[in-house]
Structures are given as C-alpha cells and as structure tokens.
C-alpha cells in the first residue's frame, strides 16, 4: 500500500442563503454534502458532474478557499482544518490550484515573470533575485514558455499560453497536489490537447497528484486514473477509469456518458441513448431520498424515500444506488 496523500472524510460545505437583514436565512445550499475519498501520490482523480454538483466547491474547500461546514481533510497524516497558522502556511505550499479562465486569473498589471515568481517570493523571501529568476525560468521551461516572455504582460498572450502561465505559477513551489478547476474548458480544441498533454507530462515526470475537475468526460478520460461522479453535492460513483468508461454503473453515470456527442457520425446514429428528463433540481431544495430520483429512468418507490449509501461493488468501485 502506498501512503495516502490526501484523505477527505465526510466533507460538507453549506452556504446559507440570506433573504435580507431581518428575515434571517432563507435556506441552505448544501453544495458539498458529505464527500469522502483518498488520493495517492502521483494519482489523478477526475471529478465530474454538471453545474451545481459541487465539484468546484469541493476543490476550493480542500484548499480552504471555501469554508468547510463539517468533515475532515487529512493532508499527509495531518488534519488540515485543525493546523495552526504556521503549519497551514507550510502545507499550503504543497497544494496549488489552476483556474478555468486563464486570463482572469492573472493580474493584468503584473509581468508574466512577476506573476510566476509571486508564490515563491511569498513563501521564500530569503531567496535572492537571481535565485528567483532561475526558478521562474525553470518553471516556464517546464510548461513550454520561452524565458524571454518574462517581461511581457498577460494580455499579450493567447488563452492557451495564459493557462501555461497559470500552470507555471502553480508549479514554482514544487507542489505535491494541484487542483485543476476546469483548466481546459475555455480553450479551443487544438489548445486543449496541448494543455492536457502538458499536465500528463508534468504528472508523469514529477509524480504530481491532480484533482482534475471538469464537466467534460472525454477530457477526464484522458488524464485520470480514477473518476468520481458528483450530483447535487454527493458522490454517485467512484471508480477506476477504465472500468468506469467500459461499464458505468450508476444510472447518472450512464446518462452522462451517453449524453456526450461523439465526434463520429456513424456511431452517433447507431447509439442507444439514456435520455434524462428535465433539468437539475435546485440545490436549495434537493429531492428527498436519492437526489437523482427525479430524473432517474430506473427510480422506484424506495428511491424517493431512502437515500442509497455509497457502497462497494465486486470490482472495488463505489456506487450509490439501490438497484445496481
């Protein structure tokens, strides 16, 4: 058994929705509602689901960018939520994030060199300018940016290059884990492929772990070792990648995979499709019982009353469904 890098247990992030000063809280959005998983060093976990499923909030809560309501996040054996300030600061160097919108996540008034150097200067003020410059150049080379671009500004770069800058900024502290929040969703297909290959290379060569958050299941398939499917804040299925794509078990996983339009017209015409009815229910008021029951083609009475536990199946995957 390899040691566990990150261990998330029953993590909850609830947002109160206010109705104004006097009326008090109107309700609570349970964006993440009891999620548990482990991540090994060098492993990529793909986190998939539609809008409102809590995938981004989960990533942010692990980094403590969103305030968790309950649960634990254990990082290399230490409880991340009870760490004192100094230890938290130290641990944070090892966890980085890259964002969806490559240009919006870069300060337009800073040069590319300064943006990439910023985390290093924050955590290692003792380094000389020459040392910082050397590390910046190293990070830029890792992500395929020419060092002479250091003195230029973000607006001079294309979306794909801005995402490389964001990755270099995450890499410069030599982290163990990078949370990638929809890192290729805003990019053109030809650029998306470049960034996926870059992340695969960094992971392979440096043994990085990635939490790869995406709504695009074809992209997730190309980068993940395991896949976790979320629906309204809960895990529906957690499985090894190949087993998942060959035979998705949860009805929601089946529907997600079957909804992807394939870039293959003959396969498209031949396909049997699991078509879901309706839209996602409001996360403010999720259905009782199984959250997926209102759209599930297999739903029975029990699904409307009892929430199915996330339980292991013969091949080791976890599925939350009464009928699988």
């Amino acid at each position, binding site marked *: 058994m390899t040691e566990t890098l990150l261990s998330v247990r029953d993590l909850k992030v609830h947002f109160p929705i206010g109705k104004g000063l006097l009326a008090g809280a109107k309700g609570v959005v349970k964006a993440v509602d009891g999620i548990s998983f482990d991540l090994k060093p060098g492993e990529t976990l793909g986190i998939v689901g539609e809008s409102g499923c809590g995938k981004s909030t989960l990533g942010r809560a692990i980094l403590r960018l969103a305030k968790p309501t309950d649960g634990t996040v254990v990082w290399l054996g230490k409880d991340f939520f009870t760490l004192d300030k100094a230890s938290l600061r130290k641990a944070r160097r090892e966890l980085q994030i890259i964002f969806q919108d490559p240009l919006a996540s870069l300060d337009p008034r800073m040069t590319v060199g300064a943006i990439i150097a910023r985390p290093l200067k924050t955590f290692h003020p003792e380094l000389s300018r020459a040392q910082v410059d050397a590390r910046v150049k190293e990070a830029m080379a890792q992500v395929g940016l020419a060092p002479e671009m250091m003195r230029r500004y973000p607006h001079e770069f294309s979306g794909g290059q801005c995402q490389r800058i964001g990755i270099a900024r995450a890499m410069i502290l030599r982290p163990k884990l990078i949370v990638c929040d929809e890192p290729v969703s805003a990019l053109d297909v030809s650029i998306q*492929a470049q960034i996926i290959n870059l992340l695969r290379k960094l992971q392979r060569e440096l043994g990085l772990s990635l939490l790869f958050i995406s709504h695009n299941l074809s992209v997730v398939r190309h980068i993940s070792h395991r896949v976790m499917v979320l629906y309204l804040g809960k895990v529906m299925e957690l499985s090894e990648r190949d087993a998942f794509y060959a035979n998705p078990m949860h009805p929601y996983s089946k529907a997600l995979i079957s909804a992807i*339009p394939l870039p293959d017209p003959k396969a498209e015409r031949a396909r049997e499709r699991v078509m879901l009815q309706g839209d*996602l229910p409001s996360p403010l008021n999720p259905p009782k019982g199984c959250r997926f029951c209102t759209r599930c083609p297999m739903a029975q009475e029990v699904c409307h009353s009892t929430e199915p536990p996330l339980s292991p199946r013969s091949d080791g995957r976890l599925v939350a469904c009464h009928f699988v």
Partner: protein
Amino acid sequence: MPSTRTSADVAARQAAAPILSARDLTVDFKLEHGWVRAVDGVSFDVRRGEVLGIVGESGSGKSQILMAAMGLTAVNGRCSGSVTLEGQEILNASPEQLDKVRGSAMSMIFQDPMTSLNPYMRVVDQLTEVLVAHQGKSKAEAVDIAVEMLERVRIPDARRRISLYPHEFSGGMRQRVMIAMALLCRPRLLFADEPTTALDVTVQAQILDLLNGLVRELNAAVVIVTHDLGVIARLCDRVIVLYGGRIMEEAAIDALFETPRHPYSQGLLAATPRLDDDTAHDLRTIKGTPRALAGQTAGCPFAPRCDRRIERCTAETPALQRLASGRAAACHLVTS
C-alpha cells in the same frame, strides 16, 4: 429519422435551388490599428431540409458569417460579397428590408439564452410580438400559437409558464424558449450560433434531440455554428471547416469524419478527445495557437501551424477546389 447524410443524398439534394447562397462573403472590422479581416471570401449554399454545420476555433470567423447574413454585424464592421435568401440580396440590406424577413423567413438561435431574452419582458410578450408583427395575428391567437410552440419544445405546463419572466426558467428551459421563438413563424432558414454550448451535457443532449426533430419536421434549411465536432456529428448533413476566415474543407459529414482531406480537419479530429481512443498516448496536437485575425498575410491561413507546409503554402493562398462526391478542400497538397 431518415438518414439524409450520405454523399449520394447530399448530391441529390444539391439539384434543388438553394434557400441561402453566400458568395465571396467578406467581413472586415475597423480596429484601432486599422482594418482586420474576420471572414475572407466565403461561399456556400444551403438547401431546404439540409443542416449545414460550420465548425471552427475562436477567431475563425464562424459567428461573423451568421451575423453578416442576419444584418447584425457590429457598427465597426463592413461586409462585402453577396448573401441571397431565396434569390433576394440580404447582405447590407436596409433595416426595413431585413425586418420583413428576420423572424419570419429566417431566424436565429443564440448561444446564451439569458442575454438574448429581454429580462424585463414576460416570455409571452416576447413570443407573441413576432406573430403580431409578421403575421398580423391578434394577441389571443398569437398566445395560443406560442403556447403550442412551447409545448412542442417540451416545456411542461406551458399555458401557465408563458406568463413568467426569463429568469424564472432554468438554463435549459430558457434555451427551449429561444428555440420556440425562433421557430414560431416557421422559418425556411434557421441559424443557430453555438446553441448548446452554455448548457450542461445532459440538457445539451435533450436540446440537440429536440432541434434535430424540429428542423427535420419543418423541413427548414439550417446553419449551425459550433466548435464542437460532436454536435456536428449528431446534427448535420454537411459541414464546412473554417480557419482564419476561410473555408478549409467542405464535405458530407460521413466523408469528413472518415476521410478528412485538409491537414487542419485532420488535426482538429485528431486533437478531439474521444471515448474510444487510446489513452496510453498523448493526444495529437496542432502546434501554435489559432490565428486571431484573418487575411493579414499571403498564403494559406493555416500554413504557420501546418506540419505538411511546403514553400508554396506561404506564398500563394490555395483556392477551394471541388473534389469528387460534392466535397471541396483548400490545400495545395490535396488534389482530386
């Protein structure tokens, strides 16, 4: 749904007169540093019952083709060439002329239903406006037709929901309202600009299904612009691959997906992650970045990124050559 997508069917349909014809359509924009070309000499036809896809990456000019045809080019833009709707010139037509055809003979579905519906108007007023204006219906008649159309795009409880405001609908439901609005006057030509890009994948599947059924039923001509080859594969009969404002390749969809001829089409297909390809190897990439602005230099716009480039590619712009079975490609290396 009858299969209308083989080369033979496409060839047969080509005999009919086109509803929409674009000839040498060029769109330029005046920016701070001068004029830039977004669309560079694009020609195509669309016929009744045909779904034409235009696929391309950002800056390829794909949306500007639709905007030019709809007379919606931004004020700093200038269009030249010709676009005819059933033989009548509509490019640079006066607002009065366009008002006669927009919303009735031709209509458009936009990408973002929230910003293209008026947030201050109830859905019922937005839907009936077009019927009252174009078809002289009374308000009561128009409401009945609108409710019926909302039912056809599968909005439950349409009679009640029609009185709601756009923000009271979910994203998928708003896009259904947009589709209903575009189809109200039974247009003979429908444009759709990334109609499902803003939607979740399960909702996208519903909307694509709905669109497919409705356009086949109406027997309209449809032009869909998207960056998603999956959407093209699901909906279209014929496809145009656009790069740097120019047509790189045009073919029936089976032909394009099975035997792409242009190096850009080949690269685009290979770079698209699939559910059935090999994950042990890296994805194929196209080096460099999409060209932001078209028509600035001589030669093929794709030449700077093409790994099969020869000297001629940067000196001389390849013309779109007609090949066998109704396809065409613009590449010096592709010959029939």
